[in-house]
């Protein structure tokens, strides 16, 4: 059983506190969804977790092992994968080369192709020429090949057609069911709450809701209030 535990985490940007005193956990085999309006601090939280920006205070632990001081590459080797917002493919490399960059001892391209068979036909195509949906599949596949314990995905549905979003959501659920701990950040709530277990809502960098996904899904008014701060 792996888990990510976040304790009293605060992160600043340009000296201003953007994320304050966050407590959260993501357990193996489950999906924790982080919701919040544009600018609430979701991306900042993930960037602090993966080490792109430094944290001001608090701790981040994977299986009890603290990683908040490690560099991003080291956190990746500790089992934390971050799929950034905006589909950060290597545009000059082919689909398969993109995945090969992430290969580790014991990981195999067939796992990635098993999850997203669509990518198999596109394996020799330059990743910059893939569709948005294919690029999103590629960055998730690439993260998986690092053999993570915890997978964090930022806004994977942004700008994609609903049928592709459902396809991606199903794939992410499958990964959690296979034992991965997933932290899913979304601005648009319904689909994410549909596949998630635990939900956190952020407003101005603070957790204003911490509970299960079903409760929120059943009361859209409550969710609306949380977003806007009623």
């Amino acid at each position, binding site marked *: 059983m792996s888990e990510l535990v976040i304790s009293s985490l605060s992160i600043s940007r340009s000296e201003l506190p953007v994320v304050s005193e966050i407590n959260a956990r993501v357990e193996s085999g489950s999906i924790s969804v982080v919701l919040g309006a544009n600018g609430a601090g979701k991306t900042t939280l993930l960037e602090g977790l993966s080490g792109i920006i430094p944290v001001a205070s608090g701790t981040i632990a994977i299986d009890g092992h603290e990683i908040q001081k490690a560099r991003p590459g080291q956190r*990746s080797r500790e089992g934390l*994968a*971050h799929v950034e917002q905006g589909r*950060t493919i290597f545009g000059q*490399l082919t689909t398969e080369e993109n995945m090969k*960059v*992430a290969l580790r001892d014991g990981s195999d391209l067939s796992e990635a192709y098993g999850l997203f068979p669509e990518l198999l036909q596109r394996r020799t195509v330059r990743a910059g020429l893939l569709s948005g949906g294919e690029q999103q599949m590629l960055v998730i596949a690439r993260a998986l*090949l690092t053999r993570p314990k915890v997978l964090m995905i930022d806004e994977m549905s942004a700008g994609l057609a609903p049928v592709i979003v459902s396809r991606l959501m199903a794939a992410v659920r499958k990964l959690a069911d296979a034992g991965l701990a997933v932290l899913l950040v979304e601005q648009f709530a319904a689909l994410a709450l549909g596949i998630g277990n635990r939900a956190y809502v952020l407003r101005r960098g603070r957790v204003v809701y911490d509970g299960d996904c079903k409760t929120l899904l059943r009361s859209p008014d409550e969710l609306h209030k949380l977003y806007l701060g009623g």
Partner: protein
Amino acid sequence: MNSFLTPAIAGLAAGGTYALLGVCAVFTYRLVAVVNFTGAAIGSAGTFALIALTESGYPTFPSVIAGILVGAAVGVLIGFIMTRWFAEANSSTKAAVTAALLVGLIAIGLRLTGGQHPRVMPDLFPGSAFRMAGVEVTIASVLTIGLAVLFTVLSDLFLNRTRIGLHLRALSDRPLAAELIGVKVRLLSLLVWGATGAFTTFALMIIAPQRSPNFMTLSLLVVPALAAALVGLFRSFWLTLAGGILLGVVEGLASSVDSISQYRSAIPFLVILAVLLWSQREARWDEAR
């Protein structure tokens, strides 16, 4: 006929050096996104290590190896400064930093090597390789051009066929995304700096005997090198190679015409100006559409 051919061929050795330095500049730019003004100065450091060793009586061959290692080490040092403190800076800031480092390296280099008095540089590869249309082609020119071609071919193979090469291409495409999936970004960047430092040093060792070597003149060979890199638009290894050789030949020709030979070192600037103006015209053309 020979009155043109002789100086043109005499320019080949310089051309080969410009080409190799230019290809190294393109390599550095493409992989670690730095327009590097210190390239030739790094090579000068290694070359002067060789001079110091041979002057103190050490045999030539081990001194050459030691010099190349010094060049690689200075390259790694500059690379460390760039990756440690300027990794996040934009490309014009990085270029400005390397220009500042160049000034620093020249100052230190001149101080350590006895100022602008030329030093005795062992001619590593004296003599001529073969005759072309009745003109001697020196071993030095064959070697520098050969080394430039070798570096181009090797980097192509290395980048496209090896795992480290794949990581380097990912790094040059998106450094942060590469780091997030565990690519050892800093280590690879230092490797690039070290390798180009070593190759540059060897190229300068070959050409130095023909150049009354003082630390400054050798370091300023970065100007024709960057002119060659510009001909390849900092992308194409082969165009850079051709640009460097051509530049050497044109310089050789210019030195045979009395009225312009005094100005031949301005030729790289003319090339830089011409390429920049031409690429500006392209940009304006794109905007107009």
